[in-house]
């Protein structure tokens, strides 16, 4: 055995994050670690990677008990981790990040930049990553940052690499690239621990599975012995009977129309419309311009030419403030940065965009705020102890519901969802879909950007496909992944003529 964990316990304050964590990894195996958010996966990985110390239990590394106190101690014995959230220094280059803390030891702390650049370029070329050593990390997309994290972890011949949801910000071909890297590591007899929420990718990577629930290991065994339903049953602790079903209804009046929207270098000649009661999916590879489209519609980035009509009137949206006023809502892909104020209570977050409606002459009406917060916590089934709980202390799925509640409270009419299910667990995903369905039934128009094609096929009434800043195809909701990929990755099809 490469690594064995027995009866690991960890408490934060009074909260038990791990009560009985068990895990064993052999060299050359890809070990999947599954569980809902809050099940203790991240804590277990942080213990292995030396980021936090365990309170009780045993950790054996190559047969000897170890107590890791820092990530560098873990790195020294051959354990490295690819983090889910980017832990890179944004102002440094890709190469500098790769070698951060592992620079050559030269006198006076001197750094030999050209050699570092060369080594980094070789590594990137060897794996065929779409990166360049001299790029500054802050300019990279989430996918690019993820690749840098992966490069960093495999750079110095570790014997165990932990992947914490490496594909959550990646799409199709990039995810395939990650799988390829994982398989290469396996061939080199490296142990891999792989955390994921995307059950569809399990078979592409995994050998064995360990499932955590409420801080305890509830199952361990070969992947081949489990069905998807079986996995979900272990994760959730009960049957997930009703999967999501989209209520289909005839679309109502037009809520949003975008004509010939262009933003130099990012978007060109975007035309589409959203109707009341409609959920329109937006597919495409990372970097196709989907997030950029959301940002432009929401007034974050200025548009060069083209127009936006809402309810028959042309809008000039120059800032998020104006977008919100016009009835738009943007559920961003990185909810912890742009979606929530983590250090404020849930109640304040829910009412943040609509403070005006709970205030008179600038004074807040506290009881109206609390009533609204309690109402939404109940309606959206946000699992929180009280409206005063800080948003940062909620799980990913519940945080997402708070973001949605914020826009419901603001009575938005047109919703832009950018990767709404990123990093949230199976149960919460279904709840988010049901919320979207309910919104649509109440007459909202929804644009849903997602890199998970299976989700789009499940949720969307029709699907727009983007590639290189253009809309390259429009498909009915009941299409296939192959058909979407044809428009997302292959040659451009003229579509603007077909539009009504």
């Amino acid at each position, binding site marked *: 055995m490469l690594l064995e964990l027995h009866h690991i316990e960890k408490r934060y304050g009074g909260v038990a994050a791990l009560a009985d964590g068990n895990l064993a990894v052999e060299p050359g195996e890809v070990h999947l670690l599954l569980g809902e958010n809050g099940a203790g996966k991240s804590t277990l990985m942080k213990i292995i990677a030396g980021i936090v110390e365990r309170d009780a239990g045993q950790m054996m590394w190559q047969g000897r008990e170890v107590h890791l106190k820092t990530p560098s101690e873990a790195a020294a014995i051959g354990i490295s981790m690819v983090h889910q959230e980017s832990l890179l220094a944004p102002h440094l280059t890709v190469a500098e990040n790769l070698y951060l803390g592992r620079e050559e030891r030269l006198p006076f702390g001197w750094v030999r930049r050209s050699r570092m650049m060369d080594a980094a370029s070789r590594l990137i070329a060897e794996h065929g990553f779409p990166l360049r050593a001299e790029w500054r990390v802050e300019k990279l997309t989430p996918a690019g940052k993820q690749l840098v994290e992966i490069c960093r972890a495999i750079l110095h011949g570790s014997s165990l690499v932990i992947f914490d949801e490496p594909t959550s910000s990646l799409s199709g071909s990039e995810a395939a690239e990650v799988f390829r890297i994982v398989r290469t590591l396996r061939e080199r007899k490296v142990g891999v621990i792989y955390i994921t929420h995307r059950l569809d990718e399990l078979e592409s990577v995994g050998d064995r599975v360990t499932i955590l629930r409420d801080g305890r290991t509830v199952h361990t065994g070969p992947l081949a012995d489990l069905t998807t339903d079986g996995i979900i049953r272990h994760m959730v602790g009960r049957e997930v009977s009703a999967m999501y079903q989209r209520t289909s209804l005839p679309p109502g009046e037009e809520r949003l129309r975008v004509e010939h929207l262009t933003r130099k270098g990012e978007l060109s000649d975007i035309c589409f419309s959203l109707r009341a009661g409609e959920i329109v999916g937006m597919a495409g590879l990372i970097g196709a311009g989907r997030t950029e489209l959301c940002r432009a519609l929401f007034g974050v980035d200025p548009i060069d030419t083209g127009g936006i009509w809402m309810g028959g009137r042309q809008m000039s949206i120059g800032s*998020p403030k104006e977008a919100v006023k016009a009835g738009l809502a943007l559920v961003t892909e990185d909810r912890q940065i742009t979606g929530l104020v983590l250090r404020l209570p849930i109640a304040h977050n829910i009412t943040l965009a609509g403070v005006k409606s709970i205030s008179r002459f600038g004074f807040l009406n506290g009881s109206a705020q609390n009533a609204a917060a309690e109402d939404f916590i109940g309606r959206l089934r946000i*699992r929180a102890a009280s409206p005063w709980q800080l948003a940062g202390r909620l799980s990913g799925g519940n945080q997402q519901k708070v973001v949605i509640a914020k826009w419901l409270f603001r009575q938005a009419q047109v919703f832009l969802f950018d990767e709404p299910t990123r990093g949230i667990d199976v149960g919460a995903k279904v*709840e988010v879909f049901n919320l979207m369905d309910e919104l649509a039934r109440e007459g909202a128009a929804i644009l849903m950007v997602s890199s998970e094609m299976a989700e789009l096929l499940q949720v969307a009434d029709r699907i727009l496909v983007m590639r290189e800043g253009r809309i390259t195809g429009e498909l009915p909701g009941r299409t296939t992944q192959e058909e979407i990929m044809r428009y997302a990755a292959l040659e451009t099809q003229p579509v603007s003529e077909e539009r009504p």
Partner: protein
Amino acid sequence: MSQPAVERTEAPPVPARRGRERIVLQRLLPFLSLIVLFVALAIASPHFLTNTNLSSVVRQTAVINIMALGMTMIIINGGIDLSVGAILAMGGLLGTMAMEKGFSIPAGILTGVVTGLLCGLANGLMITQLRIAPFIVTLGTLGIFRGTALMISGGLPVHRIPQQFSFLGEGNVLGVPFVLWILVGCALATHVLMEHTRLGRYTFAIGSNREASVYAGIPVKFHTTAVYALGGMLTGLAGMIEASRLMTGQPTAGQGYELQAIAAVVIGGGSLQGGEGSVVGTLIGAFIMGLLSNGSDLLGVSPYLQQAIIGAVIILAVTLDELRKRRTASL
């Protein structure tokens, strides 16, 4: 609401500490320190618990305290204002100059307050319109305001001020220093503003996460500018009180006061990262510093040592606050 696919009956994975309890806890430690300090001084020195001495503590502290109220708002907003000492001088100088030129006392005070407001507004506009870090902008305006004050006055203090003006800083109302009434009024107004108005709510949101505030459609620039303007206004008032106590308008007044105001905010639990701080905390912070300096005087501690003690207290207070936060934080 449609039926959720997954029913959950067990407790949420991360039990919450109620936000309000957390805030109360945050205020408790400085408050206890203040009481301990007060009691200790009362025991150590027979002169401490006299009317004269306590009045003098209040008068000495009031100027820093009123400035610190504005600084609290600015720090919660995620900013800083290094120019308040110079704004204080500008306010005091222009206010007293107005009186020298024949304006009435209220008009003179108003001049000082408006001067402060305009200086703060200039800071706010530069920060939001030029998008330069508050530290840099106010470092620059610290020099600009101070230099302007010196140029206007030719470096000389204003002396010909009506005698009744001293009432603002030295008078008593109902047996209590007038400045204490002013301080209580300003503190109440700031507290209400921060806790019960849209401006306050937005200020906390902007300071905690500016980007999310922009995405929520909050007029971030307007509210940021407003906070600096209000901070400047309070500083202008503090400048008039300082001028009244000294009965001069000094272009060199208030040097180093910005650091005392910042210290009061952080001792009171404010975070220079933004998003945290409270009026009550700042009041306690300012009084802790006031009592330390008064106590040292009474007990004959060297003024050199005094400075070192106050410096150590700042670090100690923030360290304790950090330790508490780390203990209660679950990752």
